[in-house]
C-alpha cells in the first residue's frame, strides 16, 4: 500500500504493508529510532509522536491512517541552536535518567505547550499520565515542563513585543 506523508518537514512516499503501524514505519522502514516502544498496547507512551500537532501513540496508529498528514518525531524538534526549550529543560532539571521514556515524554510536553502555554502542576501531571516513567518519580519532569513553558512564554513575549 502506498503511503505519502510528511515527517519532520520531509515528504516521504513509501510502499508499506497495509497493517504496518506508524511506529514500525518510523523505526523499521525509515530508521528513525528516536521513537521508542515499551508495550505496543498504548499503556506506556514511549512511542508518542505528533500527528498534525496532536499526540498519538504510534504503536496503535496505522501508517496508512496518517496518509497525507504531517508527523513530528523527537528527531524533528531540534532547532538550529541545538536543543529546543523542552529538551534543554529536561537536561538541566535531571528529568531524564535511563532516557527510554524521554522522547515520548518530550513529545507529550510539546503537545501540551502548544495548547496550554502556562500549565500548572496538576495540568502537567494529567497531560503526562499516558507517559510512564519508571526512573524519575516525575517531579523533575514537572519542573522541566514548568521551566520550558516559562522560557517559551518569555521568548514569545519578547518577540511579540508584549507580555500576556
Amino acid at each position, binding site marked *: 500500500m502506498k503511503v505519502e506523508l510528511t515527517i519532520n518537514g520531509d515528504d516521504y512516499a513509501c510502499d508499506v504493508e497495509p497493517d504496518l503501524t506508524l511506529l514500525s514505519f518510523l523505526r523499521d522502514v525509515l530508521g528513525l529510532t528516536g521513537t*521508542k516502544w515499551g*508495550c505496543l498496547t498504548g499503556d506506556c507512551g514511549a512511542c508518542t509522536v505528533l500527528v498534525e500537532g496532536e499526540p498519538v501513540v504510534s504503536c496503535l496508529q496505522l501508517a496508512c491512517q496518517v496518509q497525507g498528514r504531517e508527523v513530528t518525531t*523527537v528527531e524533528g524538534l531540534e532547532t538550529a541552536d541545538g536543543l529546543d526549550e523542552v*529538551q534543554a529543560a529536561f537536561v538541566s532539571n535531571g528529568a531524564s535518567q535511563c532516557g*527510554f521514556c524521554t*522522547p515520548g515524554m*518530550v513529545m507529550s510536553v510539546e503537545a501540551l505547550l502548544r495548547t496550554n502555554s502556562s500549565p500548572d502542576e496538576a495540568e502537567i501531571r494529567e497531560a503526562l499520565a499516558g507517559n*510512564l516513567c*519508571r*526512573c524519575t518519580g516525575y517531579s523533575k519532569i514537572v519542573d522541566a515542563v514548568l521551566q520550558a513553558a516559562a522560557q517559551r512564554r518569555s521568548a514569545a513575549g519578547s518577540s511579540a513585543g508584549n507580555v500576556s
Partner: protein
Amino acid sequence: MPAVRTSELQVVGRRIPKLDAPEKVTGQIAYADDLRMSGLLEGAILRSPHPHARILSIDVSAAERLPGVRAVIHAGNVQQSCFGYGNDNMPLKGDKVRFIGDEVAAVAAIDEEVAKRAIDLIHVEYEVLPAVFDPYEALEDASPCIHDELADVSGNVSMRWDFDHGDVDAAAERAAVVVEGRYSAPQAAPAPIETHVVIASFSPSGHLTVWSPVHMVFMYRKALADVLGLDWRKITVIQPPVGGSFGGKIDIDTHDFIAVMLAKHARRPVRLAMSREEEFIGTRTRQPIHFRLRTGADAEGNLLFRDAEVVSDNGAYNAWGSHAMLVAMNTITSMYRVPNSRIRCAVVYTNKNYGGSVRGFGNPQATFAVEQQMEELADALGMDPMDLRLRNANQSGDVTPQGMEITSCGLSECLEIVREQSGWDERRGTMRDRHRGLGAAAFIHVGGGARIYGSDGCGAIVKVEESGQVTLISGSSELGQGSETALAMIVAEEIGVPIESVQVVNSNTDIKPWDVGVHASRTTFVAGNAARMAAAAARDKILETAADLLEARPCDLRVRDGVVEVADEPERRIDFGRAVRRRLLREEGSVVMATAFYDPPTHHQDKEYRGNISAAYGFGAHVAEVEVDPGTGMVRLLNLWTAHDVGRAINPMSCEGQIEGGAAMGVGLALSEELVMFDGQIAAPNLHDYGLPTSVDVPRTVVNLVETIDPLGPFGAKGVGEGGIIPPPAAIANAIADATGVRPREYPMRPWKVKHWIDSEERSHVIAGKDASGHG
C-alpha cells in the same frame, strides 16, 4: 586519603546534568533494540502453557520446514547445562516445566512474523502434573514436589535462613508490651520501560559478541561459557545504554542463553526482544514474602526483641530472589537497636514465575513488617512513634547483632527532619474525621558495597590524552541512575579539571577492568573509590612532569580548573594538557595512564549470618500523608517527606533523582503494583493492570539530603540507589492506620483491600502489657 573540606570542592556537590542527557532527550542514544546490523534474525520463544507438566515429546519438524526459519532449538538439540543457585534451572527445559512461561523451544527466523508462526507450529506433548501456588501449601507433605530431581532438596524448601541472637524467649518474658502480626508482600515486577533485548553474534572465527543491557557483565560472560560450553576467552559482552533495570536486568537470564544458542545454530546474528507480556511472564520478579513478626519492648520503650517467621515464595527456580532474605534479615535484626532477635525463614518453591533481584531486594517487604510494628508498639505503649524510633535509633559506632559496623549514621537527624516538615507532632492522630493520616517509616540498607562474592571490588583506569582530556574506563556501568556522571565528577574533582574534560568508557568487557557489577547501591562507593584512586595516580604522574617544568616540588603543586600551578605562587603555572604532552612527546616519553582496584574492607557473612558485609550503611526516614475514601477504599497519597543519609551528595540532583524515583516505585508497591495471578497464570500482563504509577499517582516528593561524610566513601559518599523504595509501603500503611484506625496487613493496598479492612475493623494484635487504646 586526606579529608576534604567542603569549601575546597570544585566539582563534587554541584548539580551537574547527566553527561548523556543531550543524547537521550534527542532520541539519538541507541538502546539494544535500536541497533541495526546486517543479516540480523529475530528470535522467539515457545513457553509452557502449564504451571507444572512433564514434557513427553517435542516435534519441531513443521517449524523447521517453514520458509524463512533458520534455527529451531529445544533441549534435545542443544548443548546446555544447569544454572542458578543450586543448579536447579536449565535454559530450555527437557524434562519438566514448572511455571506458565517456562522456556521449552525457540526459533530464529528472517523476521518476527515468521518466527511467531514457526513457534505456533511446534508441537509439544505434555503430561499435566498437579501444581502448587501457595507457599504454605507447598510446605505440606502432600504437596506436589516441584524439583524431584534435586537430591539435596527435601520437599519444596530450597533454602533456610535461620538466625539467632541473644535470648528471645527470655526477652519476651520481660517485655512490657509485645505486638504480633502477619504482613505480606505481593509478587511485583521491576517493569522498566525498555523490555529485555539481547543480540548475539558469532564471528566467522568463533568469537561471540553479545549486546545485552545486563549490569553484571563479567559474571554474565562466565555464566554463558559455563552453561553453554563456550570458551570464555572468546566472549565479548557489550552493554548498550540500559532503558531502566531496577535489578531486573542485573544478571544472566534464560533468554540470554537462548539467544546465544540460536545464533550458534543459525550461524547468523540473532535478536531476542521480550514483548511486554513476556517481560511480566518470563523475566524475573520481586517474589512474595510472608512475615509473622513479634516485637517486644519494655515500659520505657526500649526494644527488647524481634521474632520472625518468614516464608519466601520464590517460585519455580532459584535465581537471585532466593537470596533476598540476606537483606530482609538485616532489617529485622538491625533496624534500630534490637538486643535479641530470632528468624526462621524458609525459601519455598511454587509453580510460579520466580524471584530475581529487584531494587531494595527484600527490604521493602521486611520494612513493611518491622516499621508498621514500630507504630503499633508505640501506640500500645502510649508513646509517640517518632520518640520510640529516636530512642532506639542506630548510631555511628554501633555494631549490630549481625556484625554490621555502622561508621556513619544520620538516622536520628533524618527522623527529626521529616517529623518537623510533616507537622507530625501537631497533626498525627488528629485528622481522622477527614480520613487523613500520617505514617512514618525508616530504613537501613547497605551503602558501601555488599560482599557476596570473593571480591566486592571494581577496577578503574584513568587515561589522560595528550589533548588534556581525561578518560575514565570504569568496570562499573550506567543504568540511567547517573553513576557515570558521579564517577566523572569524582575524577574531575580528584585531578582538578572541569567536568567537561572527563569522559567515561564503561560498556565493553574487552576494554574495561573487572567489576562485580551494579547492585546493592554500591557503584558510587566502590567504583567511585576505584576511580578516585586511579585519578589520583594519574594526576601524580602529571605533577611529576609539571614539577620538572616549573622547577618546583610535586608536593607544592596543585591542579585547578585544568591548570597546574605552584600553590603559593599561582603565577607559576602550566596548562594541564601541555604537561601531558611534555611527558609523552620526548625521548623515553610515556603515556599518562593509571589503574586502580578498590575492594572495600568488608567480610563475608559466616554460616550464622554474621559479618560486616558492607563498608557503609545508608539510612533514611519517610513520612507519608494519605486521604482514604472509606466508601471505595481508594487511597490518595497527598504528601511524602523524605530524608536520606547519603554520606555526601556527589551530585545532589542525581541523589534527589534516585530518591524521588525510588520513592515512586515504593508508592507503586504500596498502592497499586501487583502481578495478580489465578492458578499460576498472570491475569493481565500489561502495564495498566499491573498498576505502574503515573504522574498523577505520585505526589511531589520532598527530599532532604543529610550529609554524614562517611569515613570510607569517596569524598564521604554512600550508596543511594535503593533507599527510596524501601519505606513507602510501611509509611503509607501507617498513614492509612492513622487515617482509619485499621491496620493494613498486606500490600499493594488496593481499594478493595482497604475497604475490606475498614469494614472488618482489622486491628493490631497486642499480646501483653498495656491496653491497646488509641489507634493502630
